[in-house]
């Protein structure tokens, strides 16, 4: 006798509402393809394009602990805000973000990203200057490339000093699509 889907989803919901998970995750559809979303009790900790769920689970377990479970309810608010963003009804995110395993320098850069407004762009060099490390533009690029929560921390709004798009962890075409969605002239 196969496990009924309702029993399975009741367990997943109970596990997350009992606060027993280190990380809850889900996979959701978006105009940019399926997005892997993960959150701890403290906030959103991962958004990934083209994710291999098993590899993501391993990664999350190393960062936060082995109790990693797909628990869609825990990501309801994340899904809602992302959906509104893609529909053009939202320009900023209210979701708390959990950057616990991220190193200090990368964290400094990532939190500054949150201040780059919807529909505008900045450069790697400018972010490096703001972080007090004017010669670290390349390291800023690395920090963007390893951004654990793209879209919500908008690394797609960072371009080269000559205005070229340069690169994006999810592929340059996704960067173009996000900037177009925000009305940026390319």
């Amino acid at each position: 006798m196969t496990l009924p889907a309702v029993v399975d989803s009741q367990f997943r919901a109970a596990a997350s509402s009992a606060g027993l998970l280190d990380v809850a995750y889900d996979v959701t559809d978006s105009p940019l393809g399926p997005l892997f979303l993960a959150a701890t009790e403290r906030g959103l900790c991962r958004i990934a394009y083209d994710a291999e769920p098993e590899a993501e689970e391993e990664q999350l377990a190393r960062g936060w602990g082995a109790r990693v479970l797909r628990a869609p309810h825990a990501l309801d608010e994340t899904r809602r805000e992302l959906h509104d963003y893609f529909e053009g009804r939202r320009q900023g995110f209210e979701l708390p973000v959990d950057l616990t395993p991220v190193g200090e320098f990368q964290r400094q850069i990532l939190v500054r990203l949150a201040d780059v407004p919807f529909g505008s762009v900045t450069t790697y060099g400018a972010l490096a200057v703001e972080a007090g490390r004017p010669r670290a533009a390349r390291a800023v690029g690395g920090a963007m490339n390893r951004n654990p929560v793209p879209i919500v921390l908008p690394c797609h709004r960072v371009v080269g000093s000559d205005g070229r798009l340069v690169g994006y962890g999810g592929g340059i075409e996704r960067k173009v699509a996000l900037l177009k969605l925000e009305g940026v002239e390319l």
Partner: protein
Amino acid sequence: MRYTDEMRTPPFERFYESHREEIWAFLVRKLGRERAEDAFQETFLRALRAYPKLEHGLHLRAWTYTIAGRVAIDELRRRRPEPLPPDPSVEDGRPAYAEIEHLASQLPPTERAAVVLRYAYDLDYDDIGAALGSTAEAARQAASSGVRRLRRKELFV
């Protein structure tokens, strides 16, 4: 013994997906379809609570059956309509399964698991074989050699 990376407890999702079907089938056999629903959830919630304390990911299957067996016993007791008569096998106030688990703690792992699952949780040898990743016959042999070993120590009469 040092545990290598491959022996780490896997992410809970992997563990859960590997065992949910057989644990569901086991609980349905023990409790019936309806009562199995609560017991299934309780089994995996208990597993989640204990998961961070596991030192390695070995014997997870037998471990899960042990939890499910305990949940099934609790469930059968809880739903029993009459007040419980005193259990003659319990003299110091501990339930029989706790007593057997305590005695069996001195056995080698496979024998211990087989003895506990057979005599404390009343699983049949097919289930025990499944829990231990072997056969019913191997489970029977492990349980009986565990019992012989306990008898030699005069612990199990």
